[in-house]
């Protein structure tokens, strides 16, 4: 609600929910940063800490910045204040007591605290009222009224007892409300704008948000949404739907993707376009279900037996997740192969304001056969690009069988009684070459990695996916103030890897630092395999928490001071 108040007031913001794999209880916190400028990460410190229990006060108080405050319930939270930095203030409030005026259960104490925070920041209370109305719109009118009253009391209490913070961000003179969404929502919006008509999934954090949004918008957007019995069913349903001619997408996390592996090869072999969202979480195995990681790149690149074309895109921001999804559908149909959209918990679940998303969506459905095809119809015709015109069931004159077995140009399997016969030995090679040729064509069409920041830099940070958020913030802030010039190379169209475009960028950099959220520097390994360029300096994080700006800055200082 606080983030929505910021975005409706015309501020940018970025919010991250940290939670545990438990339905009730545990240490849960939600963090929001607002600014006139685009906010690119969760940041290091907080200006206002609202602690609803003693544990929260103790854990987060050291991160309250000088000039910041901690709001807490003076009756419930035991807080000595010694953990606060010198210039920070403790603001005890009767949160529970105020909230009980409106409900016997102190469930609205957070609303009271938010009311106080609005006053401290000088935000417009009227905007907050509209947000409360929309948030609880489906509940009883009395719930909305009680929340508004609770927030008002918090606001008034703060006004009578505390002084406002010195806020540097000025509200825009002509505030234009901004869109606020999670990465998962951006992916869903991109999917329906790209004409996705089928979405299947099995619930799994952090991909479940995709299923929830799709299910809620199924009728409105004309998407058949299927929660299936397992991820084996999920991806095979997706492939079946795509085979029948619709744009199909499936979503999961690493564990579910592991179950999809065999069918990934099926999509490759039968040349069926499908978009797979793989929202990574900390592994291995069940790992840390509610914590973030970028540990599945190796799997996405190597999953399933044999060689076949696949495309891997890793959106860099929430906004990019929208565009990358649209691109994924086009690439899947143009190259008739699986496209993996590599997200992660941080990208999928954090909320971010986006300035504007284009409603003009280019849809490229690839090459199609017509009904007057020469007979027999050659579904897997060998062509220069490797792309063979498609056809779907129901179409006259293009009957064929898609097979997971190796097949000839017409689709007839050559794996059984024909295997080993010289003519079919040659056919097998032709089909392999044809399929893999698509990957070579796709490779030449992959854009170069994104270069962010100044052309000339003392250090260049290499990253992929959501890690671009924190890296770009460091480039923008530290990189412009500290005397050390920093830029970044962000890999987004990861596979097929365009070494020709990446290599010169890497080789011309003075110093290179690889920043990834995994143990084994999976992107750096890929870069080395594809270009021979080895990145020795690495910031690798795999404790489940996202990378913070101060960690990147610390590493930059370390690397640039060495041999300097």
């Amino acid at each position, binding site marked *: 609600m606080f983030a929505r108040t910021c975005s409706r007031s015309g501020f940018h913001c970025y919010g991250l929910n940290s939670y545990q794999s438990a339905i009730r209880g545990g240490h849960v916190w939600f963090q929001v940063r607002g600014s006139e400028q685009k906010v690119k990460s969760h940041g290091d410190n907080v200006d206002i800490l609202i602690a609803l229990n003693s544990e929260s006060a103790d854990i987060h108080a050291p991160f309250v910045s000088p000039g910041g405050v901690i709001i807490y319930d003076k009756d419930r939270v035991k807080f000595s204040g010694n953990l606060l930095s010198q210039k920070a203030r403790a603001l005890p409030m009767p949160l529970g007591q105020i909230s009980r005026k409106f409900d016997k259960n102190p469930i609205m104490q957070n609303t009271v605290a938010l009311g106080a925070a609005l006053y401290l920041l000088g935000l417009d209370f009227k905007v907050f009222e509209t947000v409360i109305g929309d948030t609880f719109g489906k509940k009883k009118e009395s719930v909305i009224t009680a929340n508004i009253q609770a927030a008002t009391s918090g606001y008034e209490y703060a006004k009578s007892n505390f002084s406002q913070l010195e806020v540097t961000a000025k509200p825009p003179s002509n505030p234009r409300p901004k869109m606020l969404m999670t990465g998962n929502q951006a992916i869903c919006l991109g999917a329906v704008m790209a004409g996705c008509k089928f979405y299947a999934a099995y619930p799994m954090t952090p991909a479940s948000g995709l299923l929830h949004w799709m299910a809620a918008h199924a*009728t409105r957007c004309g998407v058949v949404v299927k929660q299936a019995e397992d991820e084996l069913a999920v991806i*095979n349903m997706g492939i079946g739907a795509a085979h029948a001619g619709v744009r199909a997408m499936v979503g999961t996390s690493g564990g579910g993707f592991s179950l999809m592996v065999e069918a990934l090869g099926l999509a490759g072999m039968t040349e069926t376009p499908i978009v797979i969202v793989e929202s990574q979480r900390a592994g291995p195995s069940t790992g840390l279900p509610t914590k973030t990681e970028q540990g599945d790149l190796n799997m996405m690149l190597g999953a399933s037996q044999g060689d076949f074309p696949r495309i891997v895109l890793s959106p860099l921001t929430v906004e990019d997740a929208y565009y990358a999804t649209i691109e994924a559908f086009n690439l899947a149909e143009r190259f008739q192969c699986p496209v993996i959209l590599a997200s992660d918990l941080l990208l999928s679940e954090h909320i971010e304001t986006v300035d504007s998303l284009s409603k003009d969506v280019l849809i490229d459905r690839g090459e199609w056969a017509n009904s007057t095809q020469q007979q027999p119809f050659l579904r897997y015709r060998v062509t220069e690009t490797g792309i063979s015109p498609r056809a779907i*069931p129901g179409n006259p004159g293009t009957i064929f*069988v898609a*097979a997971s077995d190796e097949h000839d140009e017409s689709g007839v399997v050559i794996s059984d009684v024909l295997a080993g016969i010289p003519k079919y030995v040659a056919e097998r090679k032709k089909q392999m070459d044809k399929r893999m040729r698509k990957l070579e064509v796709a490779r030449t069409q992959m854009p170069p990695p994104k270069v962010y920041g100044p052309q000339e830099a003392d250090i260049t940070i290499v990253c992929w996916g959501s890690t671009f958020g924190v890296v770009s913030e460091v480039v923008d802030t530290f990189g412009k103030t500290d005397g050390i010039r920093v830029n970044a190379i962000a890999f987004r169209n990861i596979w097929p890897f365009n070494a020709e475009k990446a290599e010169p960028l890497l080789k011309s950099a003075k110093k290179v630092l690889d920043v990834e959220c995994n143990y084994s520097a999976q992107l750096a390994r890929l870069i080395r395999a594809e270009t021979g360029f080895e990145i020795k300096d690495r910031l690798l994080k795999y404790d489940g928490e996202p990378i913070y700006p101060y960690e990147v800055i610390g590493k930059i200082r370390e690397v640039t001071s060495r041999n300097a």
Partner: protein
Amino acid sequence: MLELSKYKSETRPDWCPGCGDFGVLNALVQAVANLEIDPKDLLVVSGIGCSSNLPGFIHAYGFHSLHGRAIPIATGARLANPELTVVVTGGDGDGYGIGLGHFIHAMRRNLDITYIVMNNQIYGLTTGQASPTSQKSFVTKSSPMGTIEEPVNPIALALVSGATYVARGFSGDPKHLAELIEKGIKHKGFALVDVFSPCVTWNKVNTYDYFRQRVYKLNDTGYDTSDLGMALEKSREWDPKIPIGIFYETTKPTYEELDPVLRTGTPPVKASLSQSDVDGLFNEFI
């Protein structure tokens, strides 16, 4: 009725001479010809195994997919285009072993597809190992001392899983089998046709003779196909006599009729790719 030759594939079946699957292929062709289903509107989906080669041997659209995954492939295709007639074919290992989970879920969904299982109680393509429907104590390469597990009872499983058409045929009686398949395709909802389809190479116990001595038609006994309790009882009969025919048939809304998007009528494959209310959709995020 359409001519049988309309469904003739350029590819000759590679099954062993005498394989029960020939009878199933012929019965399927007879059934779709009787129903006048245009080959372009028929999608035959299979998994892996000898019997799963069937889509290649009939002139119709086909998807020869992965071992055990024919039902989800068929489900996706059917949900994308409910105007297609979708028939799934496969074996006992494919459907009752590696793909068992999908089988149960497809039945409880009552999706309007027809599932023909060529049940030979053995793994044929992998040269003769015990299958989920192998009878107890059955000696195979993988069970030299005899199997020690109870076989899956597909008819009983289908009855308790919500299938709305449950039948069993015998490929030694292709005319009767064609009738069962035809009724299964016409039936609105999930139809299972389990078929005794002898493997002449690897199963020397459950042979044509074995079944000829045992099978009898439920229809000849004044049997009531709407009685679920009786159907369950009949599903447990094996020796000395084994019933074939329709065990159970009932009418329930299909998945397609209940799905909030499909029930609006336009098959997703024919729907416009663009959104009708883009501004409304974007404004939800403000």
